[in-house]
Each structure stands twice: as structure tokens, then as C-alpha cells.
């Protein structure tokens, strides 16, 4: 596979991410911030976002595993996740967070589980 082909694949893939709503205009804005003074900007912010996301999802999972779920705590993590996902242009993640918060407000664990499964996650079985 030559470089030209790889480049076209990359462009097509990125375009599909926008088309399918995974990314929005905010990501385009971030790409514009990358220049010779800041050559690895996009890589750095995306890496930071993935690290943050992992921590936040782990925190949410721990809070949801408690015998008595503190929905305010879950909501606080989701709120932070929504903030960072909207700032990086992770459109679908942001929308899932918004829906999550609705369930937290209703203190609806079943609703939260459905959202997790719908987003492609899984619920660990508690013994």
C-alpha cells in the first residue's frame, strides 16, 4: 500500500467520523491550532482526552458498583466527561453524557445500564 493510498484512506476515515457524528466542528477548530509552533497539538490533546476518559469511566463504574449508588457522585464524573468531550469535539460522547445525566437526575440505574450497553459497553456482573 503506497503513501498516497494511506493518505486517502485517512482522509476518508476522518470524513466518515464527521459524517457519522463521532466528531464535530470543535475538532476542526483544534486541528487549526496545530502549526509549526505546536506541531503535536492534536496528538497531545487526544491522548490527554483518552487518559482522562479512562479515569472518568473507571470512577463512574466504581460509583455505580456501590451497594447504594450515589448518583450525585456519578453525575459529577459525567459532568466532567461532558465538558472535556465537548471541548475536544467528541460529539457522540458528549450526547451520551447528556443522556446519562438525565438518568442520574432520575436516579435511574436501569436507564444508565441501558445507555452503557447502547454505547457498546458492558455491565460487570456483581457476585
Amino acid at each position: 500500500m503506497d503513501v498516497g493510498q494511506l493518505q486517502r484512506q485517512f482522509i476518508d476515515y476522518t470524513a466518515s467520523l464527521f459524517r457519522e457524528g463521532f466528531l464535530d466542528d470543535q475538532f476542526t477548530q483544534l486541528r487549526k491550532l496545530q502549526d509549526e509552533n505546536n506541531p503535536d497539538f492534536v496528538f497531545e490533546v487526544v491522548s490527554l482526552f483518552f487518559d482522562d476518559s479512562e479515569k472518568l469511566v473507571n470512577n463512574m463504574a466504581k460509583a455505580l458498583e456501590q451497594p447504594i449508588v450515589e448518583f450525585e457522585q456519578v453525575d459529577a464524573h459525567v459532568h466532567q466527561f461532558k465538558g472535556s468531550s465537548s471541548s475536544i469535539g467528541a460529539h457522540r460522547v458528549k450526547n451520551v453524557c447528556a443522556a446519562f445525566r438525565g438518568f442520574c437526575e432520575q436516579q435511574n440505574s436501569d436507564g444508565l445500564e441501558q445507555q452503557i450497553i447502547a454505547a457498546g459497553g458492558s455491565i460487570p456482573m456483581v457476585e
Partner: protein
Amino acid sequence: MEKMGFGTVTSTSKTMKIIDTEKKISVLIVEDDLLIQKIHKAMMTKFGTEVQLAANGKEAVDLFLSGAYFDLILTDLEMPIMDGIEATKQLRSMGVTSMIVGVTSRNQDSEIQAFMNAGLNACYVKPLNAEKVTVVLNELKNI
């Protein structure tokens, strides 16, 4: 509510000074989230401003107490140690007349109004983008 525009400020915060057009605009970004810090810093730097960071409201207040000055303060609302509302109130009571703009994830009218009432010139809902930055910097140059 997306933003609350410039105009009515409850505390005496009208800046009355000439901005040297040759000197870079100095900006203090007050934000505890490292990812958002990085994004907002890159955005403001791209617009040609000189950026300094503070991780919470207390760091921002301490900077001013130590004699620092900034043309513009961009502040988050929710931060540990001292939040955006408390920091804005303290800065205004210290006589800080710099433009203070809130940038928050909160989007309820009541929450934004409470933030504005602390002494902001304007408040925007995250994310900060080129359009919002342009409005803020134009407003700053017109004062």
C-alpha cells in the same frame, strides 16, 4: 442559554484605559482541568495573546495580590479550593478592572446569572471556540 453578552455588570468594573495596540493582550486562564487548560491556552495563543495559567480561583487571586496584571481573565466556574464565583467577587472587591469572562460547562440560566452577578463582563458555555474568542477580543479592543 449560550452566553450572556457584554453590557450590564453589577459591580463597578468598567475599564478605562488605553490598550497599547503594539503590546500583546495578556490573558489569565483560570481552569483546573488540564485538557481544557491546554486547549484554551492554544486557542488564545493562536489569536496572538500572551497567556498565563492558574489552576483555581485562589491562584488567580494570589497572582493579582502579588502585583500581576492581565488585560483579560478567562475563568471556569467549578474549581477546587476557590471557584469562579468566589474568585471573581474577590478580584472585583480588590479593585481589579480587567475584563473577566466566565467559561463554564454549566448551562442553566440561574447558574450563569449567579456567575454574572459575581462581576463578570460576559459568560460563555464551553467549549470556547474561535467565534467566541473573536467576540471577546473585539470587545476588549473597543473598551
